[in-house]
Structure formats: structure tokens, C-alpha cells
């Protein structure tokens, strides 16, 4: 009993009383909220209408009747990167196209995910030559789907994997994987806007507003 108490005390980093209550309240609320957000995100990803080469034709098939991607809530394809969460790199990426893709990826709002579909965008596949570049070299990729081209079922498998990942953990961890910590996009508040503390200081009691 004593050990257990010590253990939990250890977990709570020595917080007691009112501080402990607040700590628990905040954590419990955030984790469940994150889970709910992850659940919502994972079931309604908006992929971008973006085709590159052979794989794009197989990518179009997943919207078709046989492998219906709408079962997972992915059917709302967006033509603009600003409304999309997911970019599927469907085909070979030439050195001429790579800056364009990077720009499209940068225009997508966070959280965003990327699937490299097919051998070409993952590793340049059969054409390892002067004209191509793999997607990993210029942008983070969450799921690689092998195949040349992958069947629609294979892409579905990749999408379901991505969905499980989004549902399971809100932090995608790609910044850590690609050693890109500190590259988060931070939208600075306009100078004349009222400070967060002034508006909400009444109830929250000094949460940092994150």
C-alpha cells in the first residue's frame, strides 16, 4: 500500500492537494479530447486530388465502386492543398516536379499526412536514374505502399494503416523521425489583438492557452 502510494506520488511528480487536482483535471481532459480529435480526424481524412503517373489511375479506382474508400470516410477529395489533410504521391517524382510537390505539401495545413504510393515515389523503383528523386528526400512520408503500381486494395491497406495510426496516437512523430523538431508552423498573433490572458483570465486561472 505504502509502495503503491509512493509510486503514484512519483508519477504525479510530487504534486499534492489543489495542485494535484488541477493537474489531473487538465491531463484527463486533454487526453480524452486528443483521443476524440484523433478519432474524428482518422475517420474523415480529406485526401488531395493529385495524380502523378501510373499509380494515379489505380488511385482513382479506390474511389470507384469496388474498393470504396468512402467506407472509411476518405471519399471527399479536395482539389486544393489548403483543404486537404493527406497527399498521396501516386507515381514517379521528377526533379522538375519535386519543388512543386514540396510547395503543395507546405501549403497543406497541419495536421497533415503523406502516403508514398508505389515503388517510384518511395525508392524510384525500376527507374533509378538522373530524372527522379524519392519522396523521402524532400518531405516526410508516413506510409509507404509497395507495388508497381500497387493494387487499389494495397493502397486501401496503406490508408487503413494510416487511419489506425491517426486514431491511435495524436502525435504523428514524423518530426522526430525526420529530425525536424522545431519546424512547427506558428501563427503569430497580430500585435493589436487582445492578449489571451486578458480575455480569459477570469476562469482558467493561468493555463497557457495551448
Amino acid at each position, binding site marked *: 500500500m505504502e509502495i503503491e502510494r509512493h509510486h503514484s506520488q512519483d508519477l504525479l511528480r510530487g504534486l499534492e492537494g489543489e495542485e494535484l487536482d488541477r493537474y489531473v483535471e487538465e491531463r484527463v481532459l486533454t487526453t480524452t479530447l486528443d483521443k476524440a480529435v484523433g478519432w474524428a480526424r482518422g475517420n474523415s481524412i480529406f485526401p488531395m486530388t493529385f495524380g502523378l503517373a501510373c499509380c494515379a489511375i489505380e488511385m482513382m479506382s479506390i474511389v470507384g465502386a469496388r474498393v470504396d474508400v468512402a467506407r472509411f470516410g476518405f471519399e471527399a477529395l479536395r482539389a486544393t492543398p489548403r483543404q486537404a489533410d493527406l497527399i498521396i504521391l501516386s507515381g514517379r517524382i521528377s*526533379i*522538375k516536379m519535386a519543388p512543386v510537390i514540396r510547395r503543395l505539401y507546405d501549403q497543406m495545413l497541419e495536421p497533415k499526412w503523406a502516403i508514398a504510393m508505389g515503388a517510384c515515389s*518511395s*525508392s*524510384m523503383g525500376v527507374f*533509378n*536514374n*538522373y*530524372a*527522379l*528523386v*524519392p519522396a*523521402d*528526400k524532400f518531405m516526410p512520408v508516413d506510409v509507404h505502399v509497395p507495388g508497381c503500381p500497387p493494387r487499389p486494395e494495397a493502397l486501401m491497406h496503406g490508408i487503413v494503416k494510416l487511419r489506425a495510426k491517426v486514431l491511435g496516437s495524436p502525435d504523428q512523430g514524423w518530426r522526430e523521425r525526420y*529530425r525536424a523538431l522545431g519546424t512547427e508552423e506558428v501563427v503569430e498573433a497580430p500585435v493589436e489583438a487582445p492578449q489571451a490572458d486578458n480575455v480569459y483570465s477570469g476562469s482558467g486561472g493561468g493555463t497557457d492557452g495551448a
Partner: protein
Amino acid sequence: MPDATGLELIAQDIRAADEESILDTVYLRGRATLIVNPPAIKPVLEALRGKGYGFLASLHGVDYWPEEPRLGVVYELLDMDSVDRISVKVRLHTDHPHVDSVMELWPGANHQEREVFDMFGVVFDDHPDLRRILMPEDYEGWPQRRDFPVGGEPVIFTYNEDRVPGYPE
């Protein structure tokens, strides 16, 4: 395809106008080829067009490395009435790869000449818009020449990412 005799007759007709225009004729496995002196390419193609070969089916570059002259430009002409094909070839040295553009005769040569320029560095004189077409405009080198490396990059997997030069950390 014209047969071997037909090819010689065509060559004879063209030579009558300009003795120096046709360097050689090749007839191999049913394929008739006229090898043309580069400065005379336009009059020769014009004459062939007059003979009924009115459709430029294709235009492509070849690199005959290590033979000299190294570069070649091949014009595949087609006679749509008698369904007859003839190919015309010019050979160019790499130190002066210049040949006249045939866009005046066939506007459709535009993209194909630009592609040959892009891939082999053959300059088509009087082409109105000779820029790279497939490679980025700031690309250096002529990628489909035989002495240009195929290229490629090491693929990064998790097991070898630390060994890839330039990878962070």
C-alpha cells in the same frame, strides 16, 4: 518502304538538284534511309515532301558514341497515300551540333526538336523557341547522350540511413 532500287532512284533525283546533298543510302531489313549532308537537310526534306512523303511521323536524336560523327537526328517521313515510309538521317559532330529547323515545313516538329535539343544538345537553327522541354530549364548537361551517366541515388531505408552522406545527424 521503297525497295532498294526505289531508294536509289529517290537519291538520284535529289542528287540531280544538289550533288553534295546525299552522302549515302542505307537499305537494311526493309528500312530505307537517306544519309544527308547536314546543311542540305531542309531542301532534301522539301524535295521528299514534293514526292509525296508529306507527313513527319517522328523526329528523334541518336548518339552513336563512340563512332564519329557522334550525334544523329533521324526524320521518319510517311507517305499517307501509298503508305510508304522513308527515314532521313543527319550525322553531327558534338563540337558543332547545328542543323536547320524544319518547323517551317512541319510545325509539328516543334516539340520533337525541342526534345532532341533537351536530350542531346543538338541546336536547331531558326527554331523560334528552342528551350529545354522535359528537363528543368536550369538543368546542365545532355542527359540522353551515351557518355552521360544513368544517375540515380542510394535509397534510404531505416537500416542504412546513417550511412547515407548528407543525412542529418
